[in-house]
């Protein structure tokens, strides 16, 4: 298949060899699970259990609230100990409501909904089942998958793209899934295409995963609607918009979705979760996580019950070989720094990385020498050097005018910068400030409007009162006159 050119990008050191050859191992059930109510984009789930309740594996613990939300299920059978605030796997380390579940060791399944025949059931039924099972984008985006499977009703979708690029360094969880759970992934893909009502499926995989490419190609051979496409190995090939452009030549307009140009993108692990939800009625209660980084003694790919603490994964991997400078959730390019090891694995945790100082290669920031490396590296055609300068001077509107909000935070610019300028830090600051300013502006407008309305109301009441008074006076006068 002919690929279309996309600009920029980088060739980072991938360091996938540490885990690419490691088969998925199940992690033993820990003594306590921490299940946050918010493991997805959207409204947090609402608990339907209370402390002391006994639950079975796969049982609903918290239900979705509203359109954009996802439920949380029990990763195993056991007892709900408590629902309390606990540190989330987010750089802020802020606590959020979390269900504490103590496994009973029986791992006893609840009564699951009956299997669904995706090719006989109505299309909406598939999305409903996927929503019920709490499936979200497992590449790290964590957007509720059912919402994306329903896009076929709002937009004319003609292509489903399955993102197997896995362009982040270190991560190999999708690679392993494609090799070891090939049939499940491909079946999930076909179910998603059916839900969307599309006839054309493209599974895109970077060429640095030859085994996965071979396995997926062989498995898909029976289905004419699926094309498995090798992608050049370049970061950020797996960026949704860029992937779609490379495969179809279609470019998503600014501030729009890929659905606007007829394409929906789903991730490999999500496809497998959809397979489990539809064919077996199993909710999303575990996921494959790559545990890597040279600070870890033995790097592995683990099948982890959701809610397991990061420290337990690291312990299972032989502990630390040296103290890391960062604990990351996700890849090193777009992953999030975690506030420590005592945070749970959630639905979007594709990797747990413990990086040494040598791997991170962080250096003193020097003045910009305007080498233009960031301009060449940017896949979005932005001029990072100039945006950073403007943000430094708090010229946020100017930065927005030259595309700050079109930046996808891929970090290619900061990766190549010879002056080690933390460009993404500037952009995050700028975006945050812009959002805050906009909120303030809205608040001000609201205050102004309310004040104006109040003034008007006071004036009107005053007028009415005066009119009434005048009328009463007049009536009294008339009465007097009449009486005279």
């Amino acid at each position, binding site marked *: 298949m002919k690929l279309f050119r996309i*600009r920029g990008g*980088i060739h*980072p*050191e991938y360091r996938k060899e540490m885990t690419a050859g490691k088969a998925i191992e199940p992690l033993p059930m820990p003594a306590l699970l921490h299940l946050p109510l918010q493991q997805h984009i959207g409204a947090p789930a609402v608990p339907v259990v209370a402390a002391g309740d006994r639950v079975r594996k796969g049982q609903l613990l918290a239900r979705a609230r509203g359109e954009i939300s996802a439920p949380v299920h029990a990763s195993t059978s056991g007892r709900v100990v408590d629902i309390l605030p606990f540190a989330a796997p987010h*750089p*802020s*380390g802020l606590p959020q409501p979390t269900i504490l579940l103590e496994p009973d060791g029986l791992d006893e399944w609840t009564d699951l909904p009956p299997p669904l025949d995706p090719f006989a059931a109505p299309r909406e039924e598939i999305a409903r089942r996927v929503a019920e099972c709490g499936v979200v984008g497992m590449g790290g985006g964590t957007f509720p998958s059912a919402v994306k499977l329903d896009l076929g009703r709002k937009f004319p979708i003609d292509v489903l793209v399955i993102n197997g690029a896995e362009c982040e*360094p270190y991560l190999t969880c999708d690679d392993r899934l494609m090799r070891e759970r090939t049939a499940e992934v491909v079946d999930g893909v076909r179910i998603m295409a059916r839900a969307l009502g599309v006839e054309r499926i493209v599974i895109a995989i970077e060429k640095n995963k030859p085994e996965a490419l071979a396995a997926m190609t062989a498995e898909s051979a029976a289905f004419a609607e699926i094309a498995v496409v090798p992608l050049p190995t370049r970061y950020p090939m797996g960026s949704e*918009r*860029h992937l779609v452009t490379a495969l179809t030549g279609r*470019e*998503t*307009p*600014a*501030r*729009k979705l890929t659905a606007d*140009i*007829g394409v929906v993108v789903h991730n490999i692990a999500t496809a497998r979760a959809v397979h489990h939800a539809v064919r077996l009625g199993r909710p999303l209660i575990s996921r494959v996580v790559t545990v890597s980084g040279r600070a870890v003694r033995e790097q592995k790919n683990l099948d982890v019950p959701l809610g397991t603490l990061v420290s337990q994964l690291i312990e299972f991997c032989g502990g630390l070989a040296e103290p890391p400078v*960062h604990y990351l959730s996700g890849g*090193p*390019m*777009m*992953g999030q*720094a975690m*506030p420590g090891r*005592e945070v749970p694995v959630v639905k979007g945790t594709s990797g747990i990385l413990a*990086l040494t100082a040598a*791997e*991170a*290669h*962080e250096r*003193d920031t*020097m*003045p910009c*020498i*305007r*080498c*233009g490396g960031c*301009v*060449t590296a*940017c*896949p*979005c*055609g932005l*001029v990072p*050097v*100039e945006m950073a300068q403007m943000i430094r001077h708090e010229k946020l509107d100017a930065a927005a*005018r030259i*595309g700050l909000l*079109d930046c996808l*935070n891929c*970090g290619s610019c*900061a*990766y190549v*910068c*010879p*002056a*080690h300028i933390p460009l993404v*830090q500037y952009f*995050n600051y700028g975006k945050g400030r812009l959002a805050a300013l906009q909120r303030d502006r809205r608040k001000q407008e609201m205050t102004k409007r309310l004040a104006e309305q109040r003034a008007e109301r006071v004036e009107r009441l005053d007028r009415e009162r005066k009119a009434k008074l005048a009328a009463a006076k007049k009536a009294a006068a008339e009465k007097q006159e009449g009486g005279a």
Partner: protein
Amino acid sequence: MISTHDISGPYAHQKTSIRRTMALVMVALLPATLFNLWVFGWPAINLLVLTLAASLATEAGCLALAGKRLPLFLGDGSVVLTGWLLAMSLPPWAPWWIAVLGGVVSVALGKHVFGGLGQNVFNPAMVGRVALLISFPLPMTMYVAPRPLFGAGSPGFVEGLSITFGGWDYDALSAASTLGHVKTELARGVALDQAMGGTDLMALAMGTVPGSMGETSAVLLLLGGLFLIARRVISWHIPVSMLGALFALATLMHWVDPARFPGGLYHLVTGAAVLGAFFIATDLVTSPVTPPGQLVYGAGIGILTYVIRTWAGFPEGIAFAVLLMNAMTPLIDRWVRPRVYGRTLRGEPLPPRRKA
């Protein structure tokens, strides 16, 4: 323990640094420099050493005044490169005070007045060269014919010192650069083929001709430049557009009147064309950051160089052309930008896709 994290990703970085970038440029300059030091002998070596010393001393002084971390900034390599490029653009037997004055002007006025590394608008080495050329036109145009080191006619070490420090008058040995000679002859009304009578393009390309300390060997400089492109320190845009514009304009004028205007190749191998295209115009700080902007900038330098060489008072125009286009760089960066993904060239969101 729970701690907050104070910096965004990425948490992986390329093994690169400003020092490494500067070092690669120096490696690229090395062959041409060594060759020319050999060609022009001890006085040229003195000149290089003095220019570097003056530049480094000025940098250290300015950094101390500005209260910046001396080891971090002095070691970034940028000032060594400035001094090196300045020395290469000076007449090889120039006296010591030219070297010292040039170093001080380049680093203090060309760089630190603007705020130091990365802040300067103009190429520091060219600021130094132009200041010297305008202030001291005579010593700045005193070229000598090649006298290879240890060969007959090459000054010895002591003799070299007396040339550099003693004001030893080498007027009798001086020779005009090719650009200067042809220009003077043409101005006298001599026809071009006669004026260029002794000009050997091959010698010009190799660098065995009178000229500035490091400008004469077009071939070795070209090799260094290609190395820089291969290592992605610079991109091809500025050298190609600059040399291309210079070549095209010269070829066009030669075609209009072959008796008055030398051809394109002559312009490429003479003077500072190749050094300028690969090492001066491509100075990262003072050139545009976007590839299309670099094309505009390079072409501007090529055109201005030709205009100055052909119609202005000076035989060589690269330094002036570079400084003039340096001044244009902020404007070019403002006007010439890449297209943003999902937007038109004017910055509007792309129109929605029509149904297939």
